[in-house]
């Protein structure tokens, strides 16, 4: 059946074969005639006579074949090309509009495809799942935990009947010491099956084998591509060398390729869960640290897997009730992809919805232009019909034009998409996107672009084509094609299209406006301090916290406090630093969370955030004292059990009672080593609220305690600076090493950069893309309104001329045309506003911090639109008013 394709492309061969076949026939006939006794000349004459016209037979043979239709089609396209070439301006506008639509859609789709459909280079990643534990008392989207203890992991691994393979891993700081000082890398303990699980071969060396990590075996590790490149300049000779990591010599056995980011670490250590293996001894008993990734057995659903693991964990909870398990909980199993991409998927779907609107606007525009052309060409179509062109052939010819337009637009759109993607990749948030993702044009995406082009051809081309050939074609010979405004109800369809375009554009603009407001609100959240002039540096010293450290090696509280006080003082003394402080974390992220007990009150499920700080913390962050006093230097020096709380704390737990001298116990300290167990802290002061749970969430109760009460966990050094914080980072690093060369700065920078990276980047991405789409949409609608009004004025030349001849003023003609345009625009705006109101629920999830029925945004959008719409009508209106009545009437 594909013979016709071959024949189409090998036309010459096909022709030769046809000729040979027919000549063979003729020669056979001649031979037979000669055999029956005729002279050769006579035989040839008779054979030719009998055969008839050779060319006619050939033509009939050609028509019997399928490729004949293709030839017709090519012919139609040739015709369409000629007619479009005659009207280049129209063709240019139409191709531009469609190319914008197709390009923007293709860009969005390629991001969606590369991020949501095919982000990982891993074997069978669609079946890779993670396990979440949900507290049934908490809101449905809160995950209580997705880390498990080693006994839990072993129970799931050994008792489940739903997974083919299961990997456990946890991350830890790995401190690497070389000549310069100590640096920190993000390491991960991974069960030895972790790499065969993902199925990516190592770039160099080998990956872990069963047996690695067992007690008594040599210490080994693997490294990712980026660490290899940045720290070791991609030198392959480091393979097999020994490095001192967290105080132990380890041999590098493998380096993973660039497109591999399994378990999110820079280097990996083997985790064997047998007795006494490295990485299995913790300072607290059985902490929940293991992150579980498993491959679903064939045919097992997520629900079935969840039910199976649920039963295992409920058995464990029954056997060992305690802190690990909420009263009522359930297990949810979701895909790895869902775990990594999460909510960003919804942002991408919202963008795809927005961009489809843009594409629809573009289609509406082109359909409108084609309709206008078709009605001007009414007579031409009628003539062709009367000369015997069938309706099908006429439709095909008209469709030919849209095929050509869409083809050109598809090509231009792909070019636009190529450059658009480069821009988009630059602003896309890296957080929710798997690091392995490669965003670019690939066959699937190009196929999608082609599909869009076909769809647009049908949408833009078919309606006008059907419209053009409907009714009695021969009657149209008598119409003039012009001068009979709306005579064929074309007006209604075109106006409808404009109204729809305006409505779609209003939806896009309102969405963009709301996002802009939301983003503005987000970036102007009152922090109380200047994030551009605030430096943070997390300093890690307890190198072996998770790594077989005997409790005796853990930090003694006083020693750690002393170390940090020394660092703080040295940082404070740096030129350019105004004040320096110590804390657990920095705003707007706040400290750790803990359940609390207030002395003299019945025990309830009360919670507060806890920060461990130096006395300079409040001054550094510009927090004002409302009652009592702040922490003092002697509180820190003697590790006194006192606390300063924020207003939210007082409001929530004390109401109108006097908060001062109340005593609070932080239950989290009872479970940690090296913390004051059972200690009550006296409230000595109240400070102003500031954001401590992200930029959007309301302020939570928080307490500030002297950092010297415990040696547990790392600390943050914070400083307000008179210069750009980044310029001070090398000095801070030097001061840390000057106090202790075994300590490392793990994260550092200015809070402004941190916020830009963590808090703003995702909304900024949505804002920029939606605004770009809305802007393009607005431009397209402008063109749409303009072309329809211009065409409308052209159709009514005679009528307007007549009016003016009868004494109508220029002003009233302009007003008449403007009014006509305004009616369409207003109707579109009304529909658009109603549709937007209907979409409020959907938008609510996308925009944080702004009411989705924001009247200001709505008002601005409507006014902008009215202005822009009127501007688009103005030129056609003025042109109408300039008509010379005499010429206008003589026209035709």
């Amino acid at each position: 059946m594909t013979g016709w394709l071959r024949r189409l492309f090998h036309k010459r061969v096909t022709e030769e074969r046809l000729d040979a076949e027919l000549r063979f026939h003729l020669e056979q006939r001649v031979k037979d005639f000669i055999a029956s006794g005729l002279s050769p000349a006579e035989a040839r004459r008779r054979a030719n006579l009998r055969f008839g016209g050779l060319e006619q037979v050939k033509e009939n043979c050609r028509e019997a074949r399928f490729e004949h239709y293709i030839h017709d089609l090519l012919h139609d396209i040739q015709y369409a090309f000629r007619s479009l070439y005659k009207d280049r301006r129209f063709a240019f506008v139409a191709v531009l509009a469609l190319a914008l639509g197709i390009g923007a859609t293709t860009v969005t789709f390629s991001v969606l495809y590369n991020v949501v459909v095919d982000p990982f280079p891993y074997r069978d990643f669609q079946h890779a799942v993670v396990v979440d534990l949900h507290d049934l008392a908490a809101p449905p989207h809160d995950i209580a935990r997705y880390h498990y203890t080693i006994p839990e992991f072993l129970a799931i691994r050994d008792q489940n009947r739903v997974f083919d393979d299961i990997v456990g891993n946890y991350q830890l700081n790995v401190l690497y010491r070389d000549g310069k000082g100590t640096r920190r890398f993000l390491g991960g303990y991974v069960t030895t099956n972790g790499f065969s699980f993902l199925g990516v071969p190592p770039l160099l060396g080998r990956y872990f084998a069963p047996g690695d990590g067992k007690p008594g075996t040599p210490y080994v590790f693997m490294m990712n591509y980026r660490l290899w490149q940045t720290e070791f300049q991609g030198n392959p000779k480091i393979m097999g060398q020994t490095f001192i990591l967290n105080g132990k010599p380890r041999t590098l056995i493998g380096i993973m390729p660039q497109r591999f980011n399994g378990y999110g670490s820079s280097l990996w250590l083997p985790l064997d869960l047998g007795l006494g293996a490295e990485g299995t001894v913790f300072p607290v008993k059985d902490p929940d640290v293991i992150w579980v990734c498993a491959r679903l057995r064939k045919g097992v659903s997520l629900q079935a897997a969840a039910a199976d693991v649920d039963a295992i964990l409920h058995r464990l909870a029954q056997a060992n009730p305690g802190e690990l398990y909420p009263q009522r909980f359930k297990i949810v199993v979701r895909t790895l992809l869902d775990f990594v991409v999460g909510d960003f998927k919804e942002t991408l779907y919202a963008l795809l919805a927005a961009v489809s609107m843009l594409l629809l606007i573009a289609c509406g525009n082109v359909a409108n232009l084609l309709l206008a052309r078709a009605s001007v060409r009414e007579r031409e179509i009628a003539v062709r019909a009367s000369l015997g062109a069938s309706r099908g052939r006429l439709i095909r010819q008209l469709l030919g034009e849209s095929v050509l337009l869409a083809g050109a637009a598809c090509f231009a759109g792909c070019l636009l998409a190529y450059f658009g993607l480069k821009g988009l990749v630059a602003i896309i948030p890296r957080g929710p996107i798997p690091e392995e993702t490669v965003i670019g044009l690939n066959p699937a995406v190009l196929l999608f672009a082609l599909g869009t082009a076909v769809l647009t051809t049908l949408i833009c081309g078919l309606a006008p084509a059907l419209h053009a050939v409907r009714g009695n074609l021969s009657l149209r010979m008598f119409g003039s094609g012009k001068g009979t405004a709306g005579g064929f109800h074309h007006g209604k369809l075109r106006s409808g299209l404009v109204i729809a375009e305006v409505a779609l554009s209003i939806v896009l603009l309102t969405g963009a406006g709301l996002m802009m407001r939301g983003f503005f609100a987000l970036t102007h959240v009152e922090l109380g301090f200047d994030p551009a002039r605030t430096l943070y540096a997390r300093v890690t010293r307890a190198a072996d916290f998770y790594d077989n450290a005997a409790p005796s090696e853990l930090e003694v509280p006083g020693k750690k406090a002393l170390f940090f006080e020394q660092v703080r003082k040295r940082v404070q003394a740096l030129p350019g630093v105004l004040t320096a402080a110590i804390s657990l974390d920095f705003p707007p992220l706040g400290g750790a969370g803990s359940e609390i007990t207030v002395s003299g009150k019945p025990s309830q499920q009360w919670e507060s955030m806890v920060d461990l700080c130096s006395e300079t913390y409040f001054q550094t962050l510009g927090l004002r004292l409302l009652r009592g006093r702040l922490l003092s230097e002697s509180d820190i020096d003697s590790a006194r059990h006192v606390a300063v709380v924020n207003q939210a704390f007082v409001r929530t737990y004390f109401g109108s009672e006097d908060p001062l001298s109340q005593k609070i116990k932080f239950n989290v300290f009872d479970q940690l080593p090296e913390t004051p167990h059972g200690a009550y802290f006296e409230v000595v002061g109240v400070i102003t609220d500031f954001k401590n749970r992200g930029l959007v969430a309301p302020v939570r109760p928080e307490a500030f305690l002297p950092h010297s009460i415990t040696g547990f966990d790392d600390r943050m050094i914070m400083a307000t600076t008179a210069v750009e914080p980044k310029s001070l980072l090398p000095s801070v690093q030097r001061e840390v090493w000057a106090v202790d060369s075994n300590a490392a700065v793990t994260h550092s920078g200015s809070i402004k950069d941190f916020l830009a990276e963590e808090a703003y980047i995702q909304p900024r991405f949505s804002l920029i893309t939606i605004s770009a789409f809305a802007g393009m949409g607005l431009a397209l609608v402008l063109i749409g309104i303009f072309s329809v009004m211009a065409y409308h004025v052209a159709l009514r030349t005679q009528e307007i001329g007549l009016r003016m001849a009868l004494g109508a003023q220029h002003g009233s003609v302009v007003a008449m045309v403007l009014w006509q345009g305004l009616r369409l625009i207003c109707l579109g705006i009304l529909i658009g506003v109603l549709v937007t109101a209907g979409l409020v629920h959907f938008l609510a999830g996308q925009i944080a911090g702004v009411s989705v029925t924001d009247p200001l945004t709505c008002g601005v959008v409507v006014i902008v639109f009215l202005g822009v719409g009127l501007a688009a009508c103005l030129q056609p209106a003025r042109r109408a008013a300039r008509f010379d009545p005499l010429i206008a009437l003589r026209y035709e």
Partner: protein
Amino acid sequence: MEQEKVEVLKGTLDMLILKVVAFGPIHGYAISQRIQQISRDFFQVPEGSLYPALHRLEDRGWLQAKWQETETGREAKFYTLTRAGRKRLSAEMVNWERLSEAVALILSTAE
């Protein structure tokens, strides 16, 4: 040769071609000769109808064509019946039998 030859009835040419090709690989000239012979010179297939019909049947997938040598050593285009063509032939034959029976019935009772 003197006898007047009848052109094949419209619509039956396809069936006759399929039937003749069903005997084995055969080229266009032989098909026209065979139809003429079997019908004892009753049908004459004009070339102007034969070749477009052959090309149409090939295009529909009922015939398959191959260039082969004839007994005299010349290259010619030989047609064979495909599986789909064989099905088509039997369907057309059943139709034809019904048609001719019906026509015969009407003719025998009309007067």
